[in-house]
């Protein structure tokens, strides 16, 4: 197991409220949190992607995690609520300012695209209402192979009994479709709960003991590492010797871009 992480602490403009959320998270035992900036583009007017506040400006020094001797680690995350394919711009410079990238698709076509094509880390599933589409095994497996994770929010399940029914039903449906291969990230926007409480809630969603605990620890760690890789590695150059006796100048090299960030990996055959 790795350290507990909460990758969905909703951003508020009220700095003191955000600080108290981070302090609560540290007190509950989370070693890493990600401040989530939700961006919902509309067709009508052009909106700017919000710029994340620097962590040092937000809180300095960061509170120490309860029961450990290290301060909490704070990341920035962007969630794009998509109702159209044009809402996600892979080449946008603004995305680079965030550590984690998430999308919340609202149609089946976008869900499929997010699972198979988009260069993101997290796919958010809204579970508080009846989903307009069903989960198909193919895109879900495709997403898992690419290292993406699905996120299910449980905060509504805590507050409202009707929404609790929808949350549990939708989450169980997601688990069933994927035969337990999906490892969700149950995280609350507002009401923080301790990591062991979230583990217990995961049991309601149909996860086993081990899977539920992984959802708050190892899965989050793999998401953060996936995000770091996504931001740094962008392509592979591999060189192939055309013939054994010819000088190096004849060696061909091929460029394979993966995404349009900076940095290239060199591989020699």
């Amino acid at each position: 197991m790795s350290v507990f992480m909460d990758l969905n602490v909703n951003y508020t403009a009220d700095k003191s409220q955000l600080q108290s959320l981070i302090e609560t998270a540290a007190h509950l035992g989370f070693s890493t949190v990600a401040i989530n900036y939700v961006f919902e583009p509309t067709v009508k007017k052009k909106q700017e992607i919000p710029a994340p506040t620097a962590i040092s400006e937000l809180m300095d020094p960061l509170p120490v995690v309860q029961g450990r001797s290290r301060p909490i680690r704070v990341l920035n995350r962007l969630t794009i609520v998509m109702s159209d394919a044009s809402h996600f711009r892979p080449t946008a410079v603004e995305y680079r300012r965030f550590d984690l990238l998430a999308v919340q698709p609202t149609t089946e076509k976008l869900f499929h695209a997010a699972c198979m094509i988009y260069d993101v880390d997290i796919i958010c599933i809204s579970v508080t209402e009846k989903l307009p589409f069903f989960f198909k095994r193919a895109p879900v497996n495709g997403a898992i192979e690419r290292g993406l994770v699905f996120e299910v929010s449980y905060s509504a399940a805590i507050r409202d009994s009707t929404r609790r029914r929808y949350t549990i039903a939708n989450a169980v449906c997601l688990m069933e479709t994927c035969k337990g291969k999906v490892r969700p990230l149950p995280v609350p926007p507002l009401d923080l709960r301790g990591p062991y409480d979230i583990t217990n809630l995961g049991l309601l969603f149909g996860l086993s003991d081990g899977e539920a605990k992984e959802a708050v620890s190892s899965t989050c760690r793999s998401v953060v590492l996936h995000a770091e890789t996504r931001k740094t590695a962008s392509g592979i150059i591999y060189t192939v010797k055309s013939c054994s006796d010819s000088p190096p100048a004849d060696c061909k090299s091929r460029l394979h871009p993966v995404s349009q960030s900076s940095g290239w990996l060199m591989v020699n055959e």
Partner: protein
Amino acid sequence: MSPDLERTPRNLLVSERSSFLDQKNRISSQLDQLHFNYKVCVLLPECSSAPSHLDSALNTFSSFYLIRKLPLYELLDTHFLETVRHGGVSGLSYRTRLDEDNCVALMPNGRLSLSLDKDSFELLGVEGKPSRFNHRTKSRFVVCVDLTDSSMAPGGRGYQRLVTGLTSRLPLKTDFLMSLPAGGGASVQALLSRYDWSEHRPEVSSCSLTDLLCPAPLTSDPPAPLTSDPHRLLEWLGAVHAAVSCENSSSSFLSSLVCPEPNKKLSHALRVSVCGLLSHQDVQKLIQEIRVYLSVSPPGSASWASVTLHGFVDSPVSWGGEEHGVLRGGDNFLSLMMFPDQSYLLHLATGAHDTCPP
């Protein structure tokens, strides 16, 4: 697929009934196998204050040391290794969580156990094996080293590799609790002088209880065999020690725990707990004193006594030096119910991520 909500987390409970007078009783070895003891809780019925010999046993538990930010390579210091080889030195990392951080345990027989996360294990570069309690991915590894072995003598290959690992590749520092054998303080003075350390005595707290509900078979003379489920008995005992009400009143939703039926009210009882890094010898001595107390008490007063010994939740090892883990809880404890005729009822319990108690 609906989750089985009534299924509680998996736990293991071993129950044994025997007598101290029986030659073949294993109580001593069973007590010794729980290496790192955090708390001992004693419950004495019909008693409002501890008799003097018991009181002195409770208040003379050996002290232990807390060293802050101890670099782990210091455990391989030549002089310290000499002390470890004599035996009796035990230590545990403090404020490290077994399911999140790197944890260290040094057992009295000289075995050093490091429970490391994946990144730390890969950095350290010393032979180890994946944890038995890994779920799908191997995210936790255990490195076990016998410090008394010849390969771990200073200069030996195993020793060099581990020292290099802990100094240059993975310079782990952790707060460390250490317990030494009697008179062992002098030998580690050099080590202690290099770091911020403090000596602590185990904390004793006692509480006199009145009108305590208790299972009736325990209070009969002679005590009748307990027919209730051991889980319910231990639940009741835990509720008493945690000061949780067993009344199950309709106005309170906090606890629905009840004392197993049939039950009887005790006019008073004494509850004592001792917390710290406790040594086996002190615990054995305490049990001995309680046996004496039971045998000399007039009939009809003390018809039983209970001692519960809790192991550390975040210790990398529990019963017999086997690996311990934390899933949703990391309990490993021992509950001993003693009677005036020198018989006892022993319960050994662990959580989901643990081996079967001996």
